[in-house]
């Protein structure tokens, strides 16, 4: 019932009614006060008593008149001087009261007192008349005695008239009293009614207040219920959102794992000899793969930001170095897209979060490349007032209409243009960038017009720490092929078979010798019996994950370099890797560039000779002159047979390494290889083959190196042959 009441009787309505009632109550109180004061005024005791006095006075007058009659009768009976004096005094007493009979006196005291006034005036006239007579008789006793009958008649007149006045006054007084009483009853009745109404008003106010309290109480209860329900829904929503984020993260991860395989494989494929058609299709696969990777990374970043908010870790960052790194990162994409990328960063080391800064710049530059068909991307960084880093990413792309600018930075928003649809993307990159920049206390924006390119810019508060050495890598140029080889024995720990194979191939391509382990436990066991230069450790693995394995390896006292493979480059992963005892980490996917960077930092550059240094040019030239290009090429191809034989020995069932040199078959092959190589000018192959024949303690690793040297030498010889033939 209360709930129903509360629905139509809101506290606001009650408040309004209460206010009105309070005003009414105040008016009533004022009215009551006014009436009360009026009553008190009318009840003026003096006025009333004066009226009573008037009655008393006329009565006294009548009494004096009677006494005058009595005195005259006495004097007539015995006319002594004393008796005559008594008559005179008695008259004086009557006379002294004459002022009460003055005109206006009754008017003052009784309303509508005309008849009273007439009586009074008549009486007054009679007394004044008599006064003249009495004044003439005082001091003349004889005349006084003779006049007594006349005086008696007049005194009786006075007596009769005063009696009439008494009766009239009494009547008048009664009427006045009753009128007064009536008025009073009226006034009191009015007062009582007003007081009753006032009381009623205040009772209603109190009732309303009580009602309001109940309504408030009910409302509060409803609010409490509502807030409980809201809390429950919020909890459910939170749980759902968490589940969604978890699902997104899981799905992204699951998509990324095979994607890593695709990208790594295509990198490898593109290093091999391909027909132009194959090269073009491979390029398409690589581009698509990277595009898909961007989308997945965006989603993962976003769900991460969504779930955990943005955390920042400020540290000194060299801006030119960052420029160089970015140039490096985009090198292939720029080249693939036939664009130029120019990055100019100010020569400072500043304090900021390098991972976040890099992430934002990656997003902006990536977008710029994505939406630019011709021309290129210019990135220009400046530091203003020693405290604000402004970075502008300008492209010569399709541009953006001004009315779309606001939408750009919204979550899940893509500009609806054909170009944008064709370019793909999650639409999260700018939203993520905005969250990051805003979270770091900066601003982000865009200046752009259709067909005039776009300039995306952001400003971040930074602190300049020191000037930085300007790196000479600001301009992207077609990189020299990765010809540098490394000597490194690598243990690759990765549970996914495809990724394992791809990564293994990438490391081997750069000269490293790779052994693999399927999980952390295998890696720990292997490290106990064998020494490696480098361990590349995936984080998520069955049996024993990368972090646990790293801790275990460190616990067992191994100081080997361990590089973690993280799903992304967030603080949490970064911190976890370092805490577990890893030396470094890098984010998936494993690409040729990354492998090169890891080996450059943690491996040893191969002492193996390269290119023409592998060859005896003089011998090669002379043999070529003797036998001609075609036969030379044929012979060169035949060397592959030696290679195959060596590989068969490495992989097949073969005797232990120390016995191999003594194996006549092996020695034969090595001998044959040495002879053929020396003849064809492949000097290094000859030297290494001879070294195997004489040295002991060489193993499969050594054969691998020999095979690589052979491959390199054959390649170098082909290049040389080409050059000589062209000349």
């Amino acid at each position: 019932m209360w709930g129903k009441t509360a629905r139509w009787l809101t506290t606001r309505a009650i408040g309004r009614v209460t206010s009105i009632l309070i005003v009414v109550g105040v008016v009533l109180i004022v009215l009551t006060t006014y009436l009360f004061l009026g009553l008190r005024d009318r009840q003026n005791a003096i006025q009333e008593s004066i009226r009573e006095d008037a009655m008393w006075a006329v009565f006294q007058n009548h009494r004096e008149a009677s006494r005058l009659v009595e005195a005259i009768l006495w004097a007539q009976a015995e006319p002594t001087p004393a008796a005559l004096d008594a008559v005179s005094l008695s008259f004086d007493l009557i006379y002294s009261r004459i002022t009460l009979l003055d005109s206006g006196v009754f008017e003052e005291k009784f309303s509508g007192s005309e008849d009273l006034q007439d009586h009074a005036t008549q009486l007054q006239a009679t007394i004044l008349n008599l006064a003249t007579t009495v004044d003439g008789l005082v001091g003349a006793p004889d005349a006084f005695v003779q006049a007594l009958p006349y005086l008696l008649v007049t005194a009786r007149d006075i007596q009769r008239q005063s009696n009439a006045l008494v009766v009239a006054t009494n009547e008048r007084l009664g009427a006045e009293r009753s009128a007064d009483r009536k008025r009073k009853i009226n006034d009191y009745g009015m007062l009582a009614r007003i007081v009753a109404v006032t009381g009623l008003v205040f009772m209603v106010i109190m009732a309303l207040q009580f009602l309001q309290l109940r309504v408030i109480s009910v409302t509060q209860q409803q609010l409490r219920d509502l807030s409980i329900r809201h809390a429950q829904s919020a909890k459910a929503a939170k749980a759902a959102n968490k589940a969604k984020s978890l699902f997104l993260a899981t799905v992204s991860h699951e998509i990324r794992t095979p994607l890593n395989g695709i990208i790594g494989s295509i990198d490898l494929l593109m290093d091999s000899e391909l027909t132009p058609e194959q090269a073009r299709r491979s390029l398409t696969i690589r581009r698509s793969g990277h595009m898909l990777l961007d989308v997945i990374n965006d989603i993962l970043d976003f769900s991460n930001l969504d779930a955990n908010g943005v955390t920042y870790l400020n540290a000194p960052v060299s801006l030119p170095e960052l420029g160089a790194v970015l140039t490096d990162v985009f090198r292939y994409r720029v080249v693939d897209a036939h664009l130029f990328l120019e990055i100019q960063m100010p020569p400072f080391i500043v304090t900021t979060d390098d991972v976040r800064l890099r992430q934002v710049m990656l997003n902006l530059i990536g977008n710029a490349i994505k939406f630019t068909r011709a021309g290129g991307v210019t990135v220009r960084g400046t530091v203003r007032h020693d405290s604000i880093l402004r970075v502008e990413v300008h492209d010569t792309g399709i541009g953006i209409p001004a009315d779309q600018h606001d939408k750009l930075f919204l979550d899940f928003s893509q500009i609806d243009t054909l170009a944008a649809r064709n370019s793909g993307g999650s639409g999260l990159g700018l939203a993520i960038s905005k969250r990051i920049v805003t979270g770091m206390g900066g601003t982000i924006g865009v200046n752009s017009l259709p067909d005039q390119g776009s300039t995306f810019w952001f400003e971040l508060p930074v602190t300049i720490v020191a000037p930085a050495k300007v790196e000479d890598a600001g301009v992207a140029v077609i990189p020299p092929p990765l010809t540098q080889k490394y000597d490194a024995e690598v243990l690759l720990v990765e549970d996914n078979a495809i990724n394992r194979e791809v990564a293994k191939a990438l490391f081997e391509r750069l000269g490293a010798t790779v052994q693999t382990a399927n999980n952390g436990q295998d890696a720990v066991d292997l490290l106990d019996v064998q020494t490696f230069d480098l361990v590349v450790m995936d984080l998520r693995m069955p049996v024993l994950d990368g972090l646990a394995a790293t801790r275990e390896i460190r616990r067992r006292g191994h100081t080997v370099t361990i590089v973690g493979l993280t799903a992304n480059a967030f603080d949490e992963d970064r911190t976890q890797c370092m805490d577990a005892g890893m030396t470094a980490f890098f984010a998936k996917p494993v690409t040729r560039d990354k492998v090169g960077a890891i080996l450059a930092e943690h491996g040893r550059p191969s002492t193996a000779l390269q290119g023409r240094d592998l060859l005896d040019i003089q011998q090669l030239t002379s043999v070529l002159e003797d036998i001609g290009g075609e036969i030379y090429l044929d012979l060169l191809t035949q060397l592959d047979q030696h290679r195959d034989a060596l590989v068969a020995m490495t992989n097949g069932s073969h005797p232990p390494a120390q016995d191999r040199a003594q194996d006549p078959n092996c020695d034969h092959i090595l001998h044959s290889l040495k002879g053929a190589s020396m003849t064809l000018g492949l000097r290094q192959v000859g030297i290494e083959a001879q070294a195997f024949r004489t040295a002991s303690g060489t193993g499969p690793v050594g054969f691998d190196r020999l095979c690589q040297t052979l491959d390199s030498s054959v390649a170098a010889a082909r290049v040389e042959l080409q050059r000589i033939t062209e000349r």
Partner: protein
Amino acid sequence: MIRHLICSLAISLALTASVVGADGLAAPQGPVILTVSGQITHTNGDGVAEFDRVMLDALAQRTTTTATPWLEGVHDFQGPLGAAILDAVGAEGGTLQVTALNDYFALVPTQDFLDFDVILATAMDGNTLSVRDKGPLFLIYPFDENVDLYTEVYFGRSVWQITRITVQD
């Protein structure tokens, strides 16, 4: 100066002599206006103290200017202080029965004569009060000086045409 002082003293002695008789109060020479009886110590008759106009005029006087319920406007009332009369008769009672020529009387606490400057007015606005003017004596409270007096209680005690005062317990 000294002669002046001696002169004043002589006059006051003469006045006292005229008022104070055998029992301390002189006998009235003219018509008797006021007769005080009851518990008094100074008399000039048979247990009574009688005053003529001269004797009353010889007592300490006062002029009270006030409005009254019985007369229009403000008037000057002159006459001997009630306290002076009580003093002259050596009154020893707590209540005074004040009686008028027409036998009206009121009971007045003696304390009223001591607390307020009550006078028995013999004249109004310089004119002697006759019986026709509510004289010869009119008991006047200083209403205008003390508004608390303006009530029926004191109106009732304001007896006019006074002829007799009886000092009671």
